[in-house]
């Protein structure tokens, strides 16, 4: 099949690098320009291979040339949406050609031809031929294929314009990709060396907590290393689309966490939040007094309104523990349309560092932006409450509603006559105390009452002196 090509063509040459010292010429790369593009075109003639501009024999050893690879394909079942997937194969397939180095993709490619290949009589036309055969072999859907190689500066420059349009289109499609559009999510257990029960679930709407990898990166990593720490997770049945709970995600998390975590919600910090390794870029934390959510990022050096810095909070909710009311997240997740959607998304956010807030200016709903305080406006829960009141943050509606609900459901228990001798504490909202553990004082008859992780809501707190 490759018998007219003067160099070997085989997968064994994948990963081949050509040192500057051994190269005949360099094509595209950081010191020049170049791109590759695959497009579906109905009107092409199969096997049409063209070199526009100088081929290798007209090039000077040691020089760098612009390089464009324009592939057109046709097939009854070929859709435009497949262009990106097929184009991404060019990288691997080009490396099958011995003496031809190919790195990266799109308009960031970098190629080299070895002296050895050139001396054997290798031409760019041979490359075009090998590529057309390999692509058709890999994707039988391709019925017709043409390859045009451009090496002239003006041609490559105008080709770059064409490619840019195509890439932008694909990127805009990719940005729209959501959890509903795919059947497969990815799991990552890379951090299990220090958080043995932690499993990260990466979906189109939820990047990994570390911020380093998104759904597309996982897809590439799982393909590159199928036995590795990043693996496919069939999402299974949707249990709840709002909280982001899926039957098979639960099953995989239970399995990979050795049974420690049995359920997770992808888009909520209540009930069964996603666990955290310790790598997260930010933590979202529930503030019971305000029934709101605060966010603190790793780069924020000060104290949060809870009176503790990021590091302390990170310690409380990392290590693969599922801690209700806390969830680690990536900064990118805050740009997701599903960002904590089950909890009210940005309407529930009542505090975040200024730096984070400013980076999210395009993603926080416009009418909310000025209603969310940062460390500059509020350093304590009291400050936040005042700020929320002054700026009419929608969380106040929420608080009001829940209070009305509480009043109608329960009989008021306090006797108003007590007020004359007591102190009344009320500060805009329902006072709530959150205690990891407390013992009720004054129980003297040998019984001790201990509350663990209790949330105590009180309409009013009355402090009375004994004997009155």
């Amino acid at each position: 099949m490759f018998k007219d090509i003067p160099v070997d063509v085989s997968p064994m040459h994948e990963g081949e690098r050509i040192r500057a010292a051994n190269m005949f010429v360099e094509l595209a790369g950081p010191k020049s320009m170049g791109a590759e593009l695959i497009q579906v075109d109905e009107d092409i003639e199969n096997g049409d291979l063209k070199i526009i501009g100088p081929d290798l024999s007209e090039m000077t050893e040691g020089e760098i040339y612009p390089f464009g690879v324009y592939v057109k394909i046709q097939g009854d079942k070929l859709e435009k949406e497949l262009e990106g997937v097929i184009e991404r194969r060019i990288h691997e397939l080009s490396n099958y050609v011995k003496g031809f180095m190919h790195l990266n993709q799109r308009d960031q490619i970098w190629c080299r031809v070895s002296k050895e290949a050139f001396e054997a009589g290798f031409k760019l036309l041979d490359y075009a031929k090998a590529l057309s055969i390999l692509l058709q072999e890999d994707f039988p859907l391709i019925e017709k294929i043409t390859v045009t190689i451009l090496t002239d500066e003006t041609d490559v420059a105008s080709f770059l314009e064409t490619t840019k349009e195509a890439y932008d289109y694909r990127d805009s499609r990719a940005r729209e990709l959501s959890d509903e559009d795919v059947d497969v999510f990815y799991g990552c257990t890379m951090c299990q060396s220090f958080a043995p029960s932690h499993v990260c679930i990466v979906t189109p709407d939820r990047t990994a907590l570390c911020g380093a990898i998104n759904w597309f990166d996982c897809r590439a990593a799982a393909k590159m290393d199928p036995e590795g720490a990043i693996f496919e997770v069939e999402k299974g049945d949707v249990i709840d689309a709002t909280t982001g709970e899926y039957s098979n995600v639960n099953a995989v998390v239970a399995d990979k966490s050795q049974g420690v975590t049995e359920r997770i919600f992808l888009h909520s910090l209540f009930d069964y939040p996603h666990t955290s390794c310790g790598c997260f870029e930010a933590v979202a934390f529930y503030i019971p007094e305000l029934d709101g959510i605060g966010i603190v990022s790793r780069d924020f050096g000060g104290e949060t309104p809870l009176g503790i810095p990021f590091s302390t909070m990170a310690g409380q909710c990392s290590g693969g523990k599922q801690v209700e009311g806390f969830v680690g997240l990536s900064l990118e997740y805050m740009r997701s349309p599903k960002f904590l959607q089950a909890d009210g998304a940005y309407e529930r956010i009542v505090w975040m560092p200024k730096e984070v807030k400013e980076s999210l200016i395009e993603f926080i709903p416009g009418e909310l932006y000025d209603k969310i305080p940062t460390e500059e406006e509020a350093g304590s829960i009291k400050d936040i409450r005042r700020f929320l009141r002054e700026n009419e943050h929608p969380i106040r509606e929420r608080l009001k509603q829940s209070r009305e609900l509480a009043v109608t459901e329960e009989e008021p228990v306090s006797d108003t006559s007590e007020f004359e001798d007591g102190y009344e504490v009320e500060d805009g909202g329902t006072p709530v105390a959150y205690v990891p553990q407390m013992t009720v004082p004054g129980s003297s008859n040998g019984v001790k009452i201990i509350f663990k992780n209790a949330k105590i809501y009180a309409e009013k707190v009355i402090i009375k002196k004994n004997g009155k």
Partner: protein
Amino acid sequence: MIIAVSGKGGTGKTLVSSLLIKSLMGKGKDILAIDADPDSNLPEALGIHVDRSVGDVREELKKDTAEGNIPPEANKWDILDYKIMESLLETPEFDLMVMGRPEGSGCYCAVNNILRKIIDRLSANYDIIIIDTEAGLEHLSRRTTQNVDIILMVTDPSKRGILTAKRIEELSKNLDISFKRKYLILNRVKPGKEDELTREVNEIGLEVAGIIHEDEQVENYDRKGKALIELPDDSQAFKSISQIMEVILKKI
């Protein structure tokens, strides 16, 4: 073949690395030098300047990711691969990769994991790889999954230097990577002390591959900041290292 050169700081590790490279040059071999010690100055010893380390590339990728500069549909690992290749300093005689500073804050598990694969694949293209690594060896195990053929521990005649070499040897047993052969190179030895030192080293269970004597020329180069790789071919230090290399190549 992968050769790692390790030792306590200031014992002549970089001298050995750079002269090993010099001894291998001009033989038609593809050589990769890796500077894996953030405190070393291998590029200076090789007479070249490197603008961008692997550490810099890693930080760039983290930054680009955080700022959303990477096209969503593009393959991030291919971008990383490209940038690593770009950070490589290529000379007619050898290529140099500088590892650079350790990670900043935040999580690098995913990036490092892929980085290791990229570096392994890149390294597979070379005949000989010389790694200048710090005494702790942790970097080495974090940066490669490949086994190292030879570890050369460099020490001066000081008790502390020799004990560090012993510690490196012990440490090397506890890593995920394994070493086929381990040798010690004694540097800055005063004439007449060879036998005594060799005995001392043998007693703690290390094999001496060779001895480099005190060398005024090397000291001069060091003082003037001249590239050690430019030492003349008849330099005492270079002749010793060429011999050591011959011995090693014969045994492997």
